[in-house]
């Protein structure tokens, strides 16, 4: 029994979800995330990690089970409504708007914000990603993979989200860039944004996270503090490539 008196920010309760036509991608999974945390969700290709994020952001509707955010049920809501509640989902493969400029992409990130001026917001993003500032007039489709990843993250932050979900932010990036992205993830969290991080790079993810969950073919195999998972024999063997 966990006896945490503080209500979690996000609760996924016993969710079953189908991906595509009939792939049962989640078979009764529960996770939770508290304010301030970085929670890592690791697992192999096809384990259901992306399905989990899509179910939270509303792109997929769970067959059964529910998703609660700030104590309120959000499963079944349209994705744009969930986004407006403060959940920003940076999808796998970045999905920047290729024919919009960097600046316009950022502007779309703040689509729902009512403030007259977003200047402070742009400044905050360009502090975090100086490169985006230099490329602001460029079409997003002409950026490199790493630059697009930064843009996708910056765009999500423009909404000032209360929860940031990142799907494979390090995918396809050079090792140096991977380090840089994880530094930025840590920094975003230190500035106060909780992060739900899906990664195949389990070592990096668990190093930056406070807690972690391990998904295996749609079931939760393990969960615990990130440091415990990093030292868990099964995790080391299956996900960190360490024999023994």
């Amino acid at each position, binding site marked *: 029994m966990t006896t945490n008196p503080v209500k979690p920010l996000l609760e996924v309760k016993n969710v079953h979800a189908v991906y595509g036509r009939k792939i049962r991608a989640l078979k009764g999974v529960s996770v939770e995330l508290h304010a301030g945390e970085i929670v890592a969700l690791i697992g192999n290709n096809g384990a259901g990690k992306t399905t989990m994020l899509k179910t939270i952001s509303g792109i997929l509707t769970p067959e059964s089970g529910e998703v609660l955010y700030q104590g309120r049920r959000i499963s079944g809501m349209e994705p*744009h409504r969930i*986004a407006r509640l403060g959940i920003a989902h940076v999808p796998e493969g970045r999905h920047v708007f290729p024919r919009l400029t960097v600046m316009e992409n950022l502007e779309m990130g703040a*689509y729902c914000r009512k403030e007259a001026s977003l200047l402070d917001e742009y400044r905050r993003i360009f502090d975090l990603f100086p490169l985006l500032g230099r490329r602001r007039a460029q079409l997003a489709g002409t950026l490199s993979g790493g630059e697009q990843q930064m843009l996708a993250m910056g765009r999500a932050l423009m909404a000032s989200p209360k929860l940031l979900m990142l799907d494979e932010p390090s995918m396809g990036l050079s090792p140096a860039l991977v380090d840089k992205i994880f530094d930025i993830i840590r920094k975003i969290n230190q500035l106060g944004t909780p992060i739900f991080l899906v990664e195949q790079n389990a070592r990096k993810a668990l190093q930056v996270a406070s807690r972690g969950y391990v998904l295996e073919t749609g079931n939760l195999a393990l969960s615990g503090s990130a440091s415990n998972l990093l030292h868990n024999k099964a995790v080391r063997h299956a996900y960190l490539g360490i024999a023994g």
Partner: protein
Amino acid sequence: MLLQQLVNGLTLGAIYSLIALGYTLVYGILMLINFAHSEVLMVGAFVGLGVQLFFPPSLTSGPLGLALVFTLAMAAAGALNVVVERLAYRPLRNISRLAPLISAIGVSIILQNAVFLWVSNQSQTFPDIMKMRSFQFAGADISSLQIVILFTALGLMAALHFFIQKTRVGKAMRACADDMEAAELMGIDTKRIVAVTFLVGGALGGAAGALNGMYYGSIKYNLGFLPGMKAFTAAVLGGIGNIQGAVLGGFILGLLEVAVAGYLPNGAEWKDVIAFVVLICVLLARPSGILGEKIGEKV
């Protein structure tokens, strides 16, 4: 002679361009060819006529009348297009690409027959809104009507350009055209943006319908078909989904048609054939059109 043909071609091309924009806007966002668009422009023309019949002449003549006729024709055609999307396309989305296409052809037949049965199956005179004059210029006979048509169309295109490029909703339209799912994740109500796209495309079609009525002086329940198909060709020629392409394709087709009519023996009889020869040639040689991007899988 050449100048005359040029002015005639540009006038016709301006109308085609406006219609082509309706096809291309909708295709750009939904990858759907709205075959009911030709009927939307026809309904716009009939609303333009209705305004002239039901409002007192003092309101429907001169520049004020022009504004009133266009505002109402555009509003009605835009609203009709939104209703068509809501009833006939949206429920079929995510089923197959073919289903909404067939539905569009169905809507087209319904609208044509509705006007045929409820309004008239005969040609109706479309009165002159403004007193028209002719100018002699370098041997060409240019009517003020042509100038009005050309500038109305160019004005609407400029307004569209501003809307798409500079406004928040216009940018959201481009974002949806790029990546609908990502747009939804930004909190953009993509269903609403699709509706706005149909509204704008339909309104441009309605304006084109009214211009068409002014240009030819009469309208009929089936008037949308030929310009609709030609404008569709223009959109494909320019690169369907590409806004500048639709305008370019419309003007090329208008000029080409006038050139065929003016310079080929028996050309006037062949001018309607040329659009479809162009369509087939483009599809064979460069299916992505002049300004269109290579059609590839979205990753």
